């Protein structure tokens, strides 16, 4: 019989704005802190872990294979291997589904998987011609060639390239992520007001969820240096957010007529999340508590210029494979990369035309009800530490199903830069045919 994948424990850090509360912590520091806390709060012993898989996008140059660095510093024994995965915004989800695949294939029993990102520490890079000129200077031997090389360095473009911006651009279609959102906003004729209203709702829902204590079993207290004051609440949530304030913001990606602003886009943030996965028999044999089940997952590709529609394609693929309908989902998390992008997905899911064109089906797959979608707010309010968000969505679904909806199925899905989508089907109960 096929193994059933379960999650026995999972925690995430609060999300801090780039250059904000966690500015003094690198991606390694964040990962180590959350990994240690997760282990400390779990009945699973570090020595029982078979492998560690961590998703990370802006991989620090001073911590190659960051998963291994985090595992060793976090107290995972040396004999446990670790590797890092990268599928852009879905890296955190990739780590979890890879872990699940390892367990399914019998190559691992217990896997620690998660995502980590410090967008604060995205580096500044030198232009390649500048690097070349510096290399030339090192090779120069005599005075005249040294002078020439020095001149070449002086003439080379010295302005640093910002890795964060370059990472958020698609080299194949020459668009940055915000521009792909503008494409969707135009094509699905989404107004600025619609986008802003959705963003306001995200802030209000996140604020309310925190006030209710929904995040208490999900988010850790961290004590970031240099002040070591405790941080628990996500930094980006604006309790007093208003349509007026949102309306005052200028479009960022297409001036002056665009509709995507800093206020209706996800926030650039730092954070980490870690989950411990195993299969049901193992968990039951060891007497470990079960947070929830991971039933299935799917990734799919789409037009890179419309990467925001990724969730439509992968959700369709996943639901179809399992013979499920969208309305059977008790909770849905669509990562809020941009308000325009989430709203486009909803429109596409409801569109007959879209269904006919892309899936060859007469009936649209149907969009999730707004009362079941991102009920505790999303990346617009909380933030989107790219390599970590995928893990966060799955973790928050488990907690919502457990504490909020009284069980059921959940779908976590996100769009991926480069034209992909990832979706994971989770549930509070074992799979019933």
């Amino acid at each position, binding site marked *: 019989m096929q193994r059933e994948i379960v999650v026995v424990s999972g925690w995430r850090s609060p999300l801090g704005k780039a250059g904000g509360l966690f500015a003094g912590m690198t991606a390694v520091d964040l990962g180590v802190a959350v990994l240690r806390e997760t282990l400390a709060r779990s009945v699973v012993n570090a020595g029982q872990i078979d492998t560690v898989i961590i998703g990370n996008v802006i991989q620090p140059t001073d911590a190659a294979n960051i998963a291994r660095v985090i595992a060793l510093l976090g107290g995972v024994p040396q004999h446990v291997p670790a590797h890092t995965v990268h599928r852009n915004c879905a890296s955190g989800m990739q780590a979890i589904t890879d872990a699940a695949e390892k367990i399914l294939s019998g190559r691992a029993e217990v896997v620690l998987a998660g995502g980590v990102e410090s967008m604060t520490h995205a580096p500044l890079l030198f232009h390649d011609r500048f690097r070349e000129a510096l290399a030339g200077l090192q090779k120069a031997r005599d005075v005249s060639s040294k002078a020439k090389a020095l001149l070449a360095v002086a003439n080379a473009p010295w302005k640093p390239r910002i890795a964060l911006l370059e990472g958020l651009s698609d080299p194949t279609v020459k668009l940055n992520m915000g521009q792909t959102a503008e494409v969707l906003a135009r094509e699905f004729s989404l107004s600025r007001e619609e986008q802003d209203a959705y963003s306001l709702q995200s802030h209000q829902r996140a604020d309310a969820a925190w006030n209710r204590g929904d995040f208490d079993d999900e988010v850790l207290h961290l*004590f970031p240096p240099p002040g070591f004051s405790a941080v628990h609440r996500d930094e980006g949530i604006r309790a007093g957010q208003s349509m007026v304030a949102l309306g005052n913001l200028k479009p960022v990606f297409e001036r002056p007529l665009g509709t995507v602003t800093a206020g209706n886009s996800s926030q650039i943030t730092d954070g980490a999340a870690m989950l411990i996965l195993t299969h049901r028999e193992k968990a039951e044999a060891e007497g470990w508590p079960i947070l929830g089940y991971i039933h299935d997952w799917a990734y799919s590709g789409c037009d890179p210029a419309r990467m925001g529609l990724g969730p439509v394609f992968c959700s369709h693929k996943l639901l179809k494979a399992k013979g499920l309908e969208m309305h059977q989902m008790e909770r849905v998390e669509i990562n809020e990369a941009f308000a325009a992008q989430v709203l486009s997905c909803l429109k596409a899911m409801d569109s007959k035309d879209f269904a006919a064109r892309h899936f060859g089906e007469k009936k649209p797959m149907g969009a999730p009800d707004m009362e079941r979608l991102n009920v505790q707010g999303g990346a617009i309010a909380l933030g989107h530490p790219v390599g970590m968000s995928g893990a966060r969505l799955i973790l928050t679904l488990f907690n919502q199903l457990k504490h909020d909806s009284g069980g059921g199925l959940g779908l976590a899905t996100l769009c991926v830069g480069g034209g992909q989508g990832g979706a994971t089907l989770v549930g509070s109960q074992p799979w019933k045919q």
Partner: protein
Amino acid sequence: METVKLLREDSLMRLRVERADRPVNVLDEVCLGELERQLDVIEETPPQLLVIESGMPGCFIAGADVDVIAAVSDAGEATRLAERGQSLMRRIEDLPCPSIAVVAGSCMGGGLELALACDYILGVQSAKTLMALPEIKIGIHPGFGGCVRLPRKIGWLKACDMILSGRSINAEQAKRMHLVDLVCYREKIEDGILYLARRGKRRFSGMQPWWMRLWPARAIFFAVMRNKALQRLKHLDVEEAYPAVPATIRVLSKVAGLAEGQAYAMEAASLGRLAVTPTCANLIRVFHLGQALQKQEAVKKGRERAGQIDCGAVFGAGVMGSGIAWVAAKGVQVDLHDVSDKALARGLTLLASLAGRDAGRMAHIRPALDKSGLEHCQMVIEAVLEEMEVKNSLWQEVSGRVSRDTLLLSNTSSLSITEMQRAVKYPGRMAGMHFFNPAPKMPLVEVIAGEKTTQKTLQTVAALAASWGKYPVLVADRPGFLVNRCLMPYMAAAFALLRPQQGGGQSVEHVDGALKQFGMPMGAFELADRVGLDICRHVAEHLSAEFGSQQALPDWFAAMVGDGLLGEKSGSGFFLWKDGKQGGLNQALSSYIPTAMRAEKEGDASISDALPPMAAMDVVDACLLPMLVEALACLQEEIVQSAEHLDAAMVFGIGFPPFRGGLLHHYSGQDAAWLQGRLKQFELSQPANLDVLKGEGA
């Protein structure tokens, strides 16, 4: 028995020092004699290369024998000992062939001076490879030519620092400061020897750097060194307390201008003078006291079990708790628990300031607000509020969650461990582990057995403390244990001196000044401010209820606490405090004790009835004798195992001046009749076991 072997290999000779009779190589009579004999042989048929190495793992030569120095009673004898060492070193230096010292393991004092006499030093990469000239710590300075050769090898600035601080240098640092000529891994030693040998005999120019030859530059340099070295000792009469410090600077500054022969003679003569000072004998005694604590039977027996502990928790992130977490993080992963996130943030900030020295250790400490991770802990130390209910409710919760052999340790300073044991299951695993403030700095740890504490637990705790670099002393579970019980009569006596009738109305600053001049790290009033007046009062009430009035504090002290004058933490006590720095006297003090401010009003003619201030020595005896009486009572009641442990506890726990050798030792030199008279003078009871002091003379 042969301790120095001479091995011949073709053109190479190896001088291998290997003691079969000792745990480490030391330069004592036996070893020096054999080195001299072997050098005779070498000088007769010089090889092409001489290698000096150790046959003992983890140790090159740990220095001269401390006991030999301690035994010297005559300055001339000490000088001759130094001259003998010096001539040995010069013979090695003058050999026609190159010589290489292979330093693997500790290389201290005379050992480093021997290495310095070689042409080259090869440092072997290992955590145990440490080099130092620690003589200053026992009140002398290097005497086998180190004062001459070290500056020549690494420069004056670094040499003065090494000699005056006595600090240890590891292989990497030694390479960076050119103390060693090559650092290599164990497997590459032979390659390293050949590599250095190819450089041939080293020729020192014998010349000082240009600036050393300009007397103003030289004078300024040594004046700066002197100021820096004496800064910590500014309250003391340095020539009496630590004569080695000024003497070392004198030697170094003279050596800089002298020819080699004269320089060595100067070094030897100065060493001779220092070796017979009481400071030297007392510092050696204190060194032995510390060693005895770290190597006591309980530590040896508990070492194995303590070594298995790799994860622990500390409750309470105050100054004490976070300090303990820092100490424990030397050996184990530590969860630092507190219910308040503010307290945790403060504790972590404090630790971060320590972590400047050791960033890796900070990573071993995990702050926790929710008591998470207890299941993985093999040891729990509590440093929460000093109230039995608070502690008991913590223990009840903790003892249910940890495994049955997890050590439960209380850092209580006054509560009974036996009583605490009633609240927990398996009380055998519970003991007291009392640190002293500031925990990262003070070396003493009182280890307290409650009624049900097992021997195994006690031994593990002692070994654990020792493995963290602390000195454990086993004490009985009586109120105040040992140190605080002896400290309180001392504090009470100091406070009593302020009263006009009894103490002659001494001023706060006069009393604190006299105690500091005696060598106490701080005065009694400053100490009260640092500890917190409310805590002092709490402890005094507790102790006086048990032991009587010698432990009680005056009424005006309670009034101060009542008015919120709590010392450093409230910004004012006896002194004013700002950002952890001591300011002037607190003016409000005069409303509690009129005479306390007398120093300020000296010029005021209206206060003419005041007595003249007591002599400093009288102030010291007035404070210390009550402490001595209480200490003798503790010995009588077997609170502590031995007089040596008691002396060690006072030095390492409250900073009793180490150059005085310990509390009992300090008074042991006095005539019994004088002491009895003195006790009577200060209206103290005559202890029945006063003759214990006689045994402490050594």
